[in-house]
């Protein structure tokens, strides 16, 4: 990704350590300027030489200009090795952060911690990546279904979605400028995207409902909690007729309570009267037209079967359930820096690479130094 300095992007800033070389050359060149101490019995003669005009004084001779040229050439070579590239004006970069909002991301990062795995991933991302953004860069966030824009992580995504989400299709977004934000590193190979994974310890907790009981995983084995199943409700909001009767039977069969009151956190399905535009379905909610409330002249069995399938499909699982695979430990945090995004594809040119010119300059300066060295 490089480092920005002096209006340029330096692809290999570690090469700057090479600047020690011209400094060492200059220090070595100054050494002979310290006078050598030599014994003589003819000091009286040298004193006469010193007193005579035009016989050369004792002033410190300068470092030969050839040495200065050599140091300048070495400096140019080191800067060339650092890979400088200018930033084309008016060009910005677009980053895409894919966020895994599946249930395992919202499990605790440590067994006795309030911080979930996703929050830990966000902290790691801010530490390793956000500081490298340029002012003109744009950032988009995608969780597999919804998009958001902005430099900061969308606050609304810090809470687990009521309907369990799936992880994004990672393979579709393995490109320069993409960042994978997750709890567990995806199993598929990654080529160009950056990876930010929180890792995490094991997260014991509920994994399934069995009738009125709840099955928990304690880190080693399954534990049946008698009567531990959470209370779950189906709420009818303005829906009646045959459908209401069917919903009551369906709910009873599944251990759900029927509610017609105010919304509650226990609601796993809400049926409401649809507008004239039409009915719809989304996880945890069904909108029903008035005409759909009764089976009319249709076969009652077919009506019941159809609606049972729709109810099962729309019904949310109990809150807080995650399979054992999601609750198992997933190792340490990982940050792998991938490729930076290409410049905008709207015609902006990438910045000019200066390393070739600097290499040429270096060769010229060294040649001049060699030519200028007294033979």
């Amino acid at each position, binding site marked *: 990704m490089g480092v920005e300095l002096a209006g340029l992007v330096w692809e290999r800033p570690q090469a700057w350590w090479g600047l020690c070389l011209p400094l060492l050359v200059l220090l070595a060149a100054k050494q002979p300027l310290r006078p050598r*101490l030599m014994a003589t019995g003819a000091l009286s003669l040298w004193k006469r030489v010193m007193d005579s005009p035009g016989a*050369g004084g004792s002033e410190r001779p300068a470092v030969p200009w050839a040495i200065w040229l050599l140091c300048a050439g070495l400096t140019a070579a080191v800067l060339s090795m650092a890979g400088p590239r200018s930033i084309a004006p008016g060009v910005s970069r677009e980053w895409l952060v894919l966020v895994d909002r599946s249930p395992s991301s919202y499990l605790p990062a440590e067994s006795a911690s309030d911080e979930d795995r996703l929050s830990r991933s966000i902290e790691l991302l801010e530490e390793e990546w956000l500081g490298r953004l340029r002012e003109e860069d744009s950032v988009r966030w995608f969780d597999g279904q919804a998009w958001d824009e902005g430099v900061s992580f969308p606050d609304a995504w810090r809470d687990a979605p009521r309907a369990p989400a799936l992880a994004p299709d990672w393979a579709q977004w393995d490109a320069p400028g993409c960042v994978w934000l997750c709890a567990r590193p995806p199993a598929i190979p990654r080529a160009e995207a950056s990876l930010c994974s929180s890792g995490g310890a094991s997260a014991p907790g509920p994994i399934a409902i069995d009738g009125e009981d709840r099955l928990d995983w304690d880190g080693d084995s399954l534990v049946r909690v008698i009567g531990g199943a959470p209370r779950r409700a189906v709420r009818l909001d303005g829906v009646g007729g045959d459908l209401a009767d069917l919903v009551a039977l369906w709910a009873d069969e599944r251990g759900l309570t029927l509610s017609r009151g105010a919304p509650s956190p226990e609601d796993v399905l809400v049926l409401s009267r649809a507008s004239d535009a039409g009915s719809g379905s989304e996880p945890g909610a069904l909108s029903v037209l008035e005409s759909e409330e009764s089976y009319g002249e249709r076969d009652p069995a077919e009506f019941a079967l159809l609606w049972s399938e729709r109810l099962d499909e729309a019904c949310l699982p109990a809150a807080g359930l995650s399979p054992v695979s999601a609750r198992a430990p997933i190792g340490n945090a990982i940050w792998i820096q991938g490729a930076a995004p290409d410049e905008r594809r709207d015609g902006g040119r990438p910045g000019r690479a200066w390393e070739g010119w600097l290499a040429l300059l270096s060769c010229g300066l060294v040649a001049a130094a060699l030519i200028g060295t007294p033979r």
Partner: protein
Amino acid sequence: MTEAHTLPCPEVSVDADLLQRARSFAARLEVGGELREEGGRGAHLLGGEEFVGHRPYRAGEDLRRLDWSLLARLGQPFVKVTRREAGEEWAVLLDTSASMGVGPPGKLQRAAEVTGALAVLGAARGARVRIISSGGAELFLTGGRAGGELLAFLNGLRAEEPRGMRGLVEKAGRFRGASRVFLVGDLLDLEPREALGLNRRGRSLAAVGLLAPLEFEPGQLGRIEWWDPEEEQRLVLNVAAESLEEYERCLNAHVDGWRDAAARHRAAFGCFDTRTPFEEVLRGILGG
């Protein structure tokens, strides 16, 4: 006192090889001719000379040395070879001040070799040789042969004294009886008139100046902090083309001053790089 370990070449290392070389040199000198007297004017017989033999006449020699009777008999010119009477005293004044530790090759090392060779030479000629170092050490060789005692004395020398040749010259009374006086050092701490004042009638004087290559021909060394190990003074200077040119002028002026003064006082003088073997140094001073 200077810390000797900071000087590049403060010590002396000589062995029996020096004695062998010196004796060979003395023999060659004997065959090739007698010692040069009084500033290189050519030898002539002086009072107290001992006749030791003949050698062929060489063109340009003083005809007063020609053996006319031998010429009449043989029809070929020969000159008489003489040496001073046995019993004359030589004084070798050796500078062992800290500046003699400059090198390599070390000035004191070369000076010790020259001194040792002079001692061998003098002993071979039957002279008594007194070696006096500026550090106070003294050796008096008699009996006609210089050997282990001389080597031990020379190996014990060390370039560490704060005073050099000037201190020796001021104590001329210690070698009042010497008929030949040799000054061996870098001569950088001495004015010619101070040394040449030792010369007098009946005495010959020779001054040997030894400089390390760093002092003789420094080369372009860049920025140097020169350090005087005797006075602990320091001087920072860029040793480049301009300063080298000026240094050469100053050094030449110093050497020329000595040469001219020596010529006026009929003394022998030579200034040598310490890379020069002692044989060449003595040949330059003594002739032959």
